[in-house]
């Protein structure tokens, strides 16, 4: 195919986008509405996932050692644990550090009660605090830790980890479900809009086919039109979601300070780093598929 023919098809597609302005507007509005909903859900779910991830990062398992264990063995155990894939971080907590923490927690403002303890009651309670990369691996890690020679006790975080992995699974399903539903709805709506738009131009397609135009020549302007509509239809919701997200973050930061301290929200840049290509990709994909498949129905002239 000649380059001039390609440019001609592109020009016709561009012209057609403006010429059939009502069809263009209807299609852009449909894609925009679907992708706007997608963008909102994406931003909410990503923040949820981020919060769960933060909570996961704080989940730890404490490992206590047998009485009279040598320092070398404690170090060996530390090495063994830190090499596990499910472990993100291992922190050694000496008995003295543990007692200091307890004192702060239990005896703050009641220092007299603390004076009753002449020695460290947590003697022989040196431990490792083990943080997980993925809470769903909690059970496997605990079994391993219990099997290590020299380990006396393992304090599990089973309920927290189970809850967090449950939430993770639910978020995964919800995200997947919403994406599938929105995609199906948008493809249905787009296909209807394109079908109506193209049936009006069925005669135009027939004329082209009678004159001897190839399927490519007939289809190319429609596909280019579909892609243009897809790009515009994805950029509009991106801008709207960007503005809404920014405003909501500002509002939360100003009005609900305690909430922003409690929960860590993703920045607009973090959200849009992935949302922008995904949204444009979906818009282009929907526009391309919608026009490609609908024109095909009329090509058998």
């Amino acid at each position, binding site marked *: 195919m000649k380059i001039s023919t390609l440019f001609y098809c592109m020009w016709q597609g561009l012209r057609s986008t403006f010429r059939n302005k009502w069809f263009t507007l209807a299609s852009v509005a449909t894609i925009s509405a679907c992708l706007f909903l997608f963008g909102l859900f994406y931003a909410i779910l990503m923040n949820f996932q981020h919060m769960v991830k933060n909570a996961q990062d704080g989940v730890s398992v404490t490992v206590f050692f047998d009485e009279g264990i040598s320092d070398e063995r404690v170090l060996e155990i530390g090495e063994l644990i830190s090499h596990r894939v499910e472990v993100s971080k291992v922190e050694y907590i000496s008995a003295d550090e543990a007692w200091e923490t307890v004192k702060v927690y239990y005896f703050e403002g009641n220092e007299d009660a603390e004076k009753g303890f002449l020695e460290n009651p947590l003697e022989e309670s040196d431990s490792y605090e083990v943080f997980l990369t993925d809470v769903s691996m909690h059970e496997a890690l605990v079994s391993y830790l219990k099997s290590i020679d020299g380990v006396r006790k393992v304090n599990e975080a089973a309920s927290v980890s189970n809850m967090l992995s449950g939430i993770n699974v639910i978020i995964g399903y919800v995200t997947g479900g919403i994406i599938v539903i929105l995609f199906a709805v948008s493809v249905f709506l787009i296909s209807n809009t394109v079908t109506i738009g193209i049936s009006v131009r069925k005669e135009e397609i027939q004329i*082209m086919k009678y*004159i*001897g135009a190839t399927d490519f020549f007939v289809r190319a302007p429609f596909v280019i039109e579909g892609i243009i509509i897809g790009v515009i239809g994805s950029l509009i919701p991106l801008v709207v979601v960007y503005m809404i997200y920014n405003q909501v973050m500002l509002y939360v930061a100003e009005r609900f300070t305690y909430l922003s301290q409690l929960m860590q929200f993703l920045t607009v840049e973090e959200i849009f780093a992935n949302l922008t290509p995904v949204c444009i990709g979906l818009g282009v994909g929907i526009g391309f598929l919608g026009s490609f498949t609908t024109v095909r129905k009329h090509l*058998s002239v």
Partner: protein
Amino acid sequence: MRTGSKKRVVRKPNDHVISFENVSKAYTEGAPALNNVNLHIDKGEFVFIVGDSGSGKSTMIKLIMREVLPSKGRVFVNGIDVVRLKHRQIPKYRRNIGIVFQDFRLLKDRNVYENVAFAQRIIQVPGREIRKNVPSILSMVGLAGKYKARPKQLSGGEQQRVALARALINKPDILLADEPTGNLDPKNSWEIMSLLEKINENGTTVLVVTHNREIVNAMQKRVITVKKGIIVSDEERGGYIDED
């Protein structure tokens, strides 16, 4: 008016541009649009196909254009077995056939120049040749001064001339005209028929489907009469046969 003659025109097989061999076409079972039709049209002929509405005339055009396939029999155009054409071969095949319709079928959003140039663009003719060819063909159909006009700014006769220019610009071997004067007044009808005759004199085979009795009778060309899917008459220098 000459009617009722059943004389068949015998042709040399090698000269046939269009051949129908035992062709039947049924859109619905038991109601054939064409029934066992045998027909041969030679290079350079001017042929009228006449008949009532629903007699099968337009089906013949559709078969030649390879818009539909015969239910039975074979159709040859320029020696090509139309039935055997693959979908991807159809565009190239159609470029050797020009076609005009009763309703002109112009691209409404494009001007006269673009409507005609379009036929050249699809066969990837270089731009400089298009700029040379389009004014030339528009002059031939008498529309040189209206190349910027949109179809809705033209009269019916002018629109049909644009359609003719578009059909002819790629120099097809065959020109099919499906009721080309159906939407035109007598003056414009005659102008279009004169153009078709001129095109035919330049060597293009012209096949005209029409209801226009006056024109058919006056032009004294070969006339094929179709009735209920059967060719009932095929006359050299024929006339319009009354249906009753």
